[in-house]
């Protein structure tokens, strides 16, 4: 049904400002002040979406963030957003939206066939049906289910919008600007306290935007206006509209999402689309109100079904009439206001009251208005596929457990339901607040919570307006005082006309009907968004999932974008009835942030693209870019990976770079290596304690390689130590380990050995380093330095200071390639000048720049480990075959005691070995698992988790193949003319010559265990 359902007057919309929009391609008109939801209702559109599992036609249930059904795909292209609640979209001119989860259209949807299959699609259906066969699940079931499930489509283009974050502190944060929140903020602001007031709606006022009341003789809208204007006058008050507090965390830290641009206006850094607020408040007041509950009965999801509070909001706030002939089903007094308002707009209204008796004043008033009230009655069914057509009603039997007599159908075009209100305690519970169930109010209430946190109004299950205003004022004054402000004079309580604080709610969840839900063809929906019905909860209980958390996961109650705001309490109340427990005993599931969904762009803020993470580059970086280097990320550093020329593949480039290193001369930008200056008269003693070998005996001008262990004896980092002067050492670390090694050293200095006179300074970015390596390295260097390079004088593992290319330099004779090498360090900003001088000087030698990949190959040929590649925090120096570096003389060093633990001396520990594939042309992938026998991977059964008795389930056998270890490094060696690898093998050091196997997807590779030094075992090449 379409056509104008816009009321001729009233509401907070601006009828002078019409807005055009399209829904599912069809054009409509609404007004400024509308939401997409209210504009659709004013246009008579109720069929908005299809449900997730059964693809049932669905309409709008609510007018707020608790909406489970009315989700749309908003906007198009890069700005498209899936699953946005129509109730939370302020209408703008040119808005485009469409239904989600439909094909080909919301009216005729193919997926609706699921509804016919629904008897077979109960809770746990997917697991039971598709999991027994892994292959069927992987190849057939999962792809289809993934396609059919879910809602809207994620955008495929980059998000064009700008988002930002703001961090603020305040004395008092008030969440929710209804009567309680406004009143609390006003009382606190009057003391001079810094107050932030946030509300998810575009307008402040909360329930007073819907409820027409007189407060102290003034219309409620006027009261709201005067409070807001008073608040605006305080310099220390921040008012945030369209801002949802999505999470409350420890220490009163709140995160809020502000929607700053709702239409298609382009965003900019000065005007972001959304802003995430990080708020630290001394005091917090939660005035988040309450959520109305629906009732559970047969086919309670027909489009046209709506909460009583939502219907009232559409009429009073938006001037839109949801229907002409509503049946109002209620268990409380409050819904009568909706019935009365419908009647005032000329609708034909019937009330079905599930309570035994209707309060006399209401009964009399309804009779006077000509509204039929059926007391002590229940709903047994709803007809109408795309829109409510009729509601079947029956009288309840004497004990209320079933029906008396037969149902009769009432013609209707709308079904208005109210099951009472639940306090919105979500934020209270985010920080571990405990709830108690109040049987009189039929709601959970905050019981015990954190300090400096108060709940007022609906959040405290206080449903009267006067109580909310007075309670808010008291809480606001108290919070200001607690934050150190002097409270002003206490105001007297407000007078509110027609303030029905007690709705005389009579608990009702699953309404009695002739048929139990699991015997009925109809669906008794509890969680609309997840298509969970009362029968699913009963099934969960029958199958043993009767704890509330298990029931949630088995039936999906409370998942999704509404997080069960509508259905959770009904679900757990039904669970309580089925298990014979009270609601208090049953308890709620855990409330977790965010309260409503937050778009990823907002969370990322400015930390996107190049700003995602700091990018560190060396002083030579521009040269690498200009010379076509491919880069590798090492921590935050960009390091040249290899330098392809003339369209070379990586394999070709690396082979060429390796050949140059073994036959001519090469250069590496080694600036990223971590460097720590260790100074002080106890520096030598300190280094003796943190390295496995002796450092205090090092002569000035000498360099020593060292290993650092953690206290557990496992290798943690490696590098060199150079004694620059008697009390001054330079320590190098791995590129990725620099920061953590520095912190590790500081830890011991500050907390274990504060008596040592040692100072640590990170100098990584003070020195740029160029490594010149290869047989012609000396010939090259001679051209740019006056230093004596005679190897008899400038020996391996020593260092010199002097000038290179006219620049003050430190030159170290260290080799990670096995070739004659000089590591030349200059002041950081001289790095590029040094590099270019080296390149110029080496031009006629064919100098070749090389990257990290070639570095890895060259060092692996020499059997040098890379910490973090060969090691993973579970290897001792002995496991690596590096017992030679562990001092026997030193009484103690970090990790020493652990090297004699029973576990670290086991002979079957994984140990580093060299591996040569029997097929010398094949490079085994790194990470390949190693086993003893030549098994084929396809014959190895999939891993299957064991059942309760320990036996594998689903008839499959668990893997019987014992793992020996894995390949840690694997390359093609240009120097060896074959492939080779390093790996870890259990007890491998005693297995030289044995064959082990790497089963791969399509073949199994035999590999021979060999010594891990593949090239120049004698070390003859290091002096050139």
């Amino acid at each position, binding site marked *: 049904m379409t056509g104008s359902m816009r009321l001729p007057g009233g509401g907070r919309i601006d009828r002078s400002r019409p807005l055009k929009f399209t829904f599912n391609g069809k054009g409509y008109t609404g007004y400024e002040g509308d939401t997409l939801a209210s504009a659709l209702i004013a246009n008579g559109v109720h069929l908005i979406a299809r449900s997730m599992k059964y693809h049932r036609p669905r309409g709008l249930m609510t007018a707020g963030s608790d909406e489970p059904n009315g989700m749309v795909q908003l906007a198009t292209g890069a700005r498209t957003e899936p699953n946005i609640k129509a109730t939370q979209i302020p209408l703008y001119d040119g808005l485009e939206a469409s239904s989600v989860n439909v094909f080909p259209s919301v009216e005729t949807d193919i997926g609706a066939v699921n509804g016919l299959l629904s008897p077979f699609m109960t809770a746990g259906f997917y697991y039971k049906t598709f999991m027994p066969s892994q292959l069927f699940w992987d190849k057939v079931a999962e792809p289809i289910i993934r396609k059919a499930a879910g809602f809207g489509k994620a955008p495929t283009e980059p998000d064009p919008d700008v988002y930002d974050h703001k961090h603020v502190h305040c004395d008092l944060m008030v969440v929710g600007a209804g009567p309680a929140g406004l009143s609390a903020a006003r009382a606190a602001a009057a003391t001079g306290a810094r107050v932030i007031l946030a509300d998810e709606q575009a307008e402040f006022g909360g329930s007073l935007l819907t409820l027409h009341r007189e407060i102290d003789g003034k219309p409620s809208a006027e009261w709201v206006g005067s409070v807001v204007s008073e608040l605006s006058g305080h310099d220390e008050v921040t008012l945030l509209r369209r801002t949802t507090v999505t999470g409350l965390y420890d*220490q009163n*830290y709140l995160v809020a999402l502000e929607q700053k641009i709702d239409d298609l206006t382009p965003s900019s850094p000065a005007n972001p689309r959304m802003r995430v607020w990080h708020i630290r408040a001394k005091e917090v007041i939660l005035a988040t109100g309450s959520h109305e509950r629906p009732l559970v009965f047969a086919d309670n999801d027909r489009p046209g079904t709506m909460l009583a509070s939502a219907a009232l909001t559409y009429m009073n706030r938006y001037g839109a009439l949801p229907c002409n002939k509503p049946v109002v089903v209620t268990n409380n007094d409050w819904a009568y206001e909706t019935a009365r308002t419908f009647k005032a707009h000329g609708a034909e209204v019937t009330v079905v009251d599930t309570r035994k008796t209707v309060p006399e004043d209401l009964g009399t008033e309804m009779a006077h208005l000509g509204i039929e009230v059926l007391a002590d009655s229940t709903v047994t069914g709803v007809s109408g596929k795309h829109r409510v057509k009729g509601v079947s009603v029956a009288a309840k039997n004497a004990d209320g457990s079933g029906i008396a007599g037969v149902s009769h159908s009432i013609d209707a075009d709308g079904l208005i339901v109210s099951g009472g209100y639940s306090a919105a305690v979500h934020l209270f519970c985010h920080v*571990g607040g405990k709830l108690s169930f109040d049987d009189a109010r039929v709601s959970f209430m905050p019981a015990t919570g954190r300090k400096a946190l108060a709940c007022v109004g609906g959040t405290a299950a206080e449903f009267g307006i006067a109580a909310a205003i007075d309670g808010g004022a008291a809480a606001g004054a108290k919070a200001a005082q607690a934050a150190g402000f002097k409270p002003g004079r206490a105001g007297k309580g407000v007078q509110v006309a027609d303030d029905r604080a007690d709705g005389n709610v009579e608990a009702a969840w699953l309404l009695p009907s002739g048929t139990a839900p699991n015997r009925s063809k109809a669906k008794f929906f509890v969680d609309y968004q997840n298509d969970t019905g009362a029968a699913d909860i009963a099934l969960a209980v029958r199958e043993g999932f009767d704890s509330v958390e298990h029931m949630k996961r088995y039936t999906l109650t409370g998942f999704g974008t509404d997080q069960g705001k509508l259905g959770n309490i009904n679900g757990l109340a039904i669970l309580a009835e089925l298990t014979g427990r009270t609601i208090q005993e049953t308890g709620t599931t855990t409330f977790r942030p965010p309260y409503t969904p937050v778009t990823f762009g907002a969370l990322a803020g400015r930390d996107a693209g190049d700003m995602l993470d700091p990018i560190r580059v060396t002083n030579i970086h521009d040269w690498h870019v200009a010379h076509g280097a491919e880069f590798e990320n090492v921590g935050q550093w960009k390091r040249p990976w290899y330098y392809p020329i003339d369209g070379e593949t990586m394999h070709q480039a690396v082979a060429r770079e390796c050949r140059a290193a073994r036959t001519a001369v090469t250069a590496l930008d080694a600036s990223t290596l971590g460097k720590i200056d260790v100074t002080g008269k106890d520096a030598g003693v300190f280094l003796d304690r943190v390295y496995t070998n002796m450092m205090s005996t090092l002569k000035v001008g000498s360099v020593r390689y060292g290993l650092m262990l953690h206290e557990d004896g496992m290798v943690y980092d490696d590098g060199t130590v150079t004694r620059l002067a008697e009390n001054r050492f330079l320590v190098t670390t791995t590129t990725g380990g620099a920061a953590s090694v520095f912190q590790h050293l500081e830890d011991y200095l*500050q*907390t274990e050995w504060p008596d040592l006179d040692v100072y640590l300074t990170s100098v990584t970015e003070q020195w740029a380093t160029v490594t010149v390596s290869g047989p012609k390295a000396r010939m090259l260097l001679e051209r740019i330095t006056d230093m004596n390079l005679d190897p008899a004088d400038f020996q391996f593992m020593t260092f010199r200071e002097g000038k290179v290319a006219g620049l003050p330099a430190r030159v170290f004779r260290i080799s990670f390639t096995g070739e004659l090498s000089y590591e030349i360090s200059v002041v950081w900003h001289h790095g590029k000048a040094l590099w270019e001088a080296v390149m110029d000087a080496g031009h006629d030698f064919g100098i070749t720049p090389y990257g990290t990949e070639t570095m890895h190959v060259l060092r692996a040929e020499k059997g040098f480990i890379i910490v973090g590649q060969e090691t993973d925090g579970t290897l001792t120096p002995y496991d690596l075959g590096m017992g030679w570096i562990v001092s026997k003389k030193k009484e103690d060093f970090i990790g020493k*005691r652990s090297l004699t633990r029973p576990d670290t001396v086991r002979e079957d520990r994984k140990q580093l070995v060299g591996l040569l594939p029997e097929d010398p042309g094949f490079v085994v992938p790194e990470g390949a698992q190693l086993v003893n026998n030549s098994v084929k991977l396809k014959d190895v059964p999939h891993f299957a988790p064991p059942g309760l008795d320990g036996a594998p389930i689903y008839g499959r056998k668990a893997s019987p193949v014992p793992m020996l270890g894995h390949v840690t490094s694997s390359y093609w060696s240009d120097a060896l003319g074959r492939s080779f690898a390093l790996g870890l093998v259990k007890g491998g050091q005693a297995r030289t010559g044995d064959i082990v196997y790497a089963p791969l997807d399509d073949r199994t590779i035999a590999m021979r265990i060999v010594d891990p030094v593949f090239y120049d075992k004698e070390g003859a090449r290091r002096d050139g």
Partner: protein
Amino acid sequence: MLLIPCPYCGERPEIEFSYGGEAHIARPQNPASLSDTQWAEFLFMRGNQKGAFRERWIHTHGCRRWFNMLRDTTSHEIYAVYKIGAPKPPAPGEKPAAAKKPATRARKGASK
């Protein structure tokens, strides 16, 4: 995310800090003299208390100094922060420790 009162810098957001595990676990003076069991006790065993807990933090992106914190592991309430080597402040409901002779060497575990 906590707001942590660094004893040297004042209140700073948690992202500036790194966690260092349980406090007051002193590295043994002479590890070689310990049995495997005693060494394992030092190396692996931690209290993992519920409630008031003494732990180490470092202001990594600030003064880079280590300090101790007394924090409730359920509510995350920070009861106290104190410098390395300083006496332990009492946990809520706990009697203040009797004044002891200051340790000759300030260590991670002035006393356990």
